[in-house]
């Protein structure tokens, strides 16, 4: 990954619910008949009602036996915000995806679209996917010392990065954002065109 240390603005994007139109885990869960449980747990976590780490480990555990290749397929089929993805690709060298989601599930999508990202780390134990290390989203800013940063996210676990980035944008295109995100964001968008136009002016 080459980045000009004296370069311009760094654009960071959450994956689930910002690039993808819906959260990823509930869709994977449908493969093993756990869509409702995972859906409820995911929603509660994004709303900030449940702490992220324990919830994420629990959900991964429930989905551990879904074959990784099948998940990669599901991810490529997920509806995304097309205009946003197009914008990101047009500014590819300035954009990074920041997701607590697992590398084995999300990297194939990133690679396919030629995008860089930070993810959580997984490992395989007896054919079951397990969480090895959950990404600390806030630590991402330390990778861009002295740079102006813009963060776009929609869930409670994006709040800290939205707060600490130079500019924080709450993505309310698909759903309202939780209060903790509204309290720290600089901007809020409800429309993809407005998001892209605003990013271009930052």
């Amino acid at each position, binding site marked *: 990954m080459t980045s000009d240390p004296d370069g311009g603005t760094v654009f960071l994007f959450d994956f689930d619910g910002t690039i993808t139109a819906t959260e990823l885990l509930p869709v994977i869960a449908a493969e093993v008949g756990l869509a409702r449980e995972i859906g409820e747990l995911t929603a509660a976590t994004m709303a900030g009602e449940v702490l992220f780490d324990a919830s994420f480990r629990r959900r991964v555990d429930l989905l551990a036996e879904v074959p990784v290749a099948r998940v990669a397929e599901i991810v490529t089929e997920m509806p995304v915000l097309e205009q946003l993805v197009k914008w990101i690709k047009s500014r590819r060298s300035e954009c990074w995806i920041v997701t607590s989601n697992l590398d084995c599930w999300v990297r194939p999508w990133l690679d396919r679209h030629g995008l860089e990202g930070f993810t959580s780390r997984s490992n395989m134990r007896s054919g079951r996917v397990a969480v090895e290390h959950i990404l600390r989203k806030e630590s991402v800013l330390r990778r861009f010392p002295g740079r102006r940063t813009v963060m776009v996210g929609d869930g409670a676990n994006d709040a800290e990065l939205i707060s600490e980035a130079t500019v924080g944008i709450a993505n309310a295109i698909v759903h*309202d954002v939780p*209060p903790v995100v509204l309290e720290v*964001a*600089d*901007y*809020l968008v*409800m429309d993809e065109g*407005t998001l892209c136009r605003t990013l271009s*002016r930052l």
Partner: protein
Amino acid sequence: MSNSVTVVISAAGLGTRLGLNRPKALVSVAGRPLLEWQLEMTRAIDRIVVVVGFRAQEVVSLVRGIRPDALICLNHEFATTGTAASVARGAETASDWVLSLDGDLLVDPTDLYELIASPSSCLGLVPVVSTAPVYATVDDGVVTGLSQDEETPWEWSGLVKLRRTEAAALGRGHVFEGMKPSLPMAYRGIHCVEVDEVEDLARAKAWIESTPRMREYAG
């Protein structure tokens, strides 16, 4: 597009003098919230920024129902800064020109659009009506002074067209103070009503009902 205008609506305030325990933007006048009047009236404008603060989510929900393509700007310091802070934040990503509209102001659409079309920075003035007006000194067809002390026949309404750079440099206090470096400035007489005190609600309703262009937007 060098002439494109972004309308920036300052809707972050508390509206304490209205005593209605809700953001001023959501106070109903003639059957609909103030902000709804403003958003309906500015439908012809592509770029809208609404600056929110007090009870932000409620104001955002209202905007979502009418102009989901509006950019919401959050002014978290709404309780401790003046309107200038809201306008300056709202202007950061704007196009070349900003039309700054106070959240408590209903403007005759004819005047609003004429101000938008003004070729230069331009203040909307009214004959003095307020209890604490910002007096405008007019000299030789331009505004040369803005002050709360020096009584003149004109007051500034709270509506102004500014260059984005002027709007972004307004500071954090009163907008009229922040505009002083931009004087002298052109002006237009406009028709409008400000909703500041409880007594203004009935007056605003009567004004709407007697202003033909407003009735067009009554929905």
